[in-house]
């Protein structure tokens, strides 16, 4: 049995498989700009009241026409709730927390981010299907974690 030959074949085959996986990721990152959210913006989580955007979080249309939803997660609710947005338009979410770490998952979509006190998670999604969606907190945040749900209405 030619051990060395088999070894070689497998080593190269395994390497080839991995290069293929990575190729797929690089291609989508390069061509379709599929990238993880990576926003760096800090603030004082104990004084959100001093940040107008998060003192009264809401759905707003910015002067440049973009649609921005600012969300504060706080044990055990999201504000605003419900969130109403139009279908087929890019919506930028800006999510933060005023106390512990929470999660922000719009069930059935690819909107999924962490709400970390002191930081803003920012990402953009376009909802194509009108309807009502559940927003769930997916990071354990205390004894009523499972009760921390909100609603998204896509019109």
């Amino acid at each position, binding site marked *: *049995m030619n*051990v060395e030959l088999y*070894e070689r074949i*497998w*080593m190269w085959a*395994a*390497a080839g*498989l*991995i290069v293929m*996986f*990575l190729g*797929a*990721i690089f291609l*989508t*990152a390069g061509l379709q700009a*599929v*990238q*993880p*959210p*990576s*926003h*760096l913006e*800090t*603030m*004082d*989580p*104990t004084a959100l009241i001093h940040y107008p955007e998060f003192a009264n979080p809401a759905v707003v249309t910015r002067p440049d026409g973009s649609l921005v939803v600012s969300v504060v997660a706080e*044990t055990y609710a999201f504000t605003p709730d419900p969130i109403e947005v139009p279908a087929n338009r890019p919506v930028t979410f800006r999510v933060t927390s005023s*106390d*512990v*770490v929470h*999660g922000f*998952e719009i*069930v*059935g979509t*690819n*909107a*999924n981010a*962490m709400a*970390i*006190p*002191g*930081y*803003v*998670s*920012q990402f953009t999604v376009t909802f194509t299907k009108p309807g009502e969606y*559940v927003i*769930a*907190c*997916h*990071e*354990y*945040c*205390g*004894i*009523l*974690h*499972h*009760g921390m*749900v909100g609603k998204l209405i896509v019109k």
Partner: protein
Amino acid sequence: MTGRHTLASTHIGVAIAAFAVASAMGVLQALSVADVEFPRRSESLYYVSLTAHGVLMALVFTTFFIMGLGYVLAQECLGRITGRLGAWIAFALAAVGSVMAAVTILRGQSTVLYTFYPPMQAHPLFYIGATLLVVGSWIWGGVMIASYRSWRREHPGVPVPLSIHGMLAAVIVWYLATAGLAAEVLGMLIPWSLGMVDKVDPLVARTLFWWFGHPLVYFWLLPAYVLWYTVLPQVAGGRLFSDRLARMVFILFVVLSTPVGFHHQFSDPGISSGWKLAHTVLTYGVLYPSLVTAFTVIASLEVAGRMKGAKGLFDWIGRLPWSDPFFACIALAMIAFTFGGFGGAINAAYAMNTMVHNTAWIQGHFHVTLGTTVALSFMGATYWLLPRMLGRELRFRGLARVQPYLWFLGMALFSTSYHLAGLRGLPRRVYSASLTGEYGEAWHGLTKVAAAGGTILFLSALAFVTVVLATWVAGKKISPPAFEFAVSLRPATALTLWDRFGMWTVVAVVLLAVAYGYPLIHLLSQQRWGSPAFQPF
């Protein structure tokens, strides 16, 4: 003869005790998520038991088991444990630490889960206890290295036995990983929980945690690989296919294990997409040694089958000792790992990650990898070790034979339904899958199946613990069978590149410093405020 393995068997005994308690908690959680009513079901019981389950399974069971296994291998393959007194002190520290942490959890003072993300705050004794467990394991690593050094002086120029090569790799991975944890716990959480500082930065803490959190899984996996490479082919009646590839695999883990943690933070702010991508590439890099392991181990089993006279293409599979409890455990562990590997490749691709991040998918994933691959390997190892360590015959062999299959069946049900529920968006760590009592329809059937799987798992755990206990206290005294390790088709005769641990450790440290240094410095140079403490209950 007696007393030769007391150190090891004491560690393994503690590990299995932690496993037993944690398994009972696991079934309670599975029932709770599925909304099956049982006496005393409550939110606090669910979250307390979830914390206990995670800490006892992921930190106590694994660490003690690996320490014990390390001592067995040092004794048998190197003929020594250098620094026995230190080893006992380490045991005492780790045991006291674990008990401290467990008591604060069970009293409801530290319900912060095994990830303990601040600003959720636990009792100071929780953090201090966890620290003592880690300090104990550091001393264990020192004993392993000292034993190796002392052996090396007597055997210049000879490759160290493969099992020790693998354990040394695990020790190095562990030191690299726990550096991040130490920075988090000693530098941030302990002073904060004692009231010496008012605030901690949750994102810096998360980043340090995941620096530790992913290599942690390789710290579990490498000892399992040691068993697959050095014991499995022997039990199956074959040869290790390639010693050289095996040594390479362990070294690649040393180098690639640590700089991958950002794949747990794809959905976090504060880390640039460039660094997330870099960690993705390295994550796929660690897939490589696992693929090579799959090849080598399966080739070794084929050799075993053929040595027993197998002819055709697949005939060798049937000739393997499927009714041997050790063999069954490891073979099933390996099958589970192929599914775990596919899932891992999905988690690491960040577009797909947003679909599953923090959903029940994640629990499904790590119950096949950790909860099956690692746990079954350690259960198999226990069946192999007990007669050799204790000089007692295994009791209830029939039970030991079906137990691995029962675990596999239970986990197939549990893990498949958690994967599917996760794809449908069921968030992780919830007391009830109906959330506020309204949203459960898409998940209910699946969580019920998972609860059935969890019950089967619990029965399997009971069977395992019964065999172990009965053997320990009432197994028939025998003269202990020899520890036999697999011979390689082409044994290593000279030192190669893959035996140079010092050099590879330096490479690993440099890579780690680059992969975490720059993003951390960038983060720390921002204006930050930090968070005061919150109690979860």
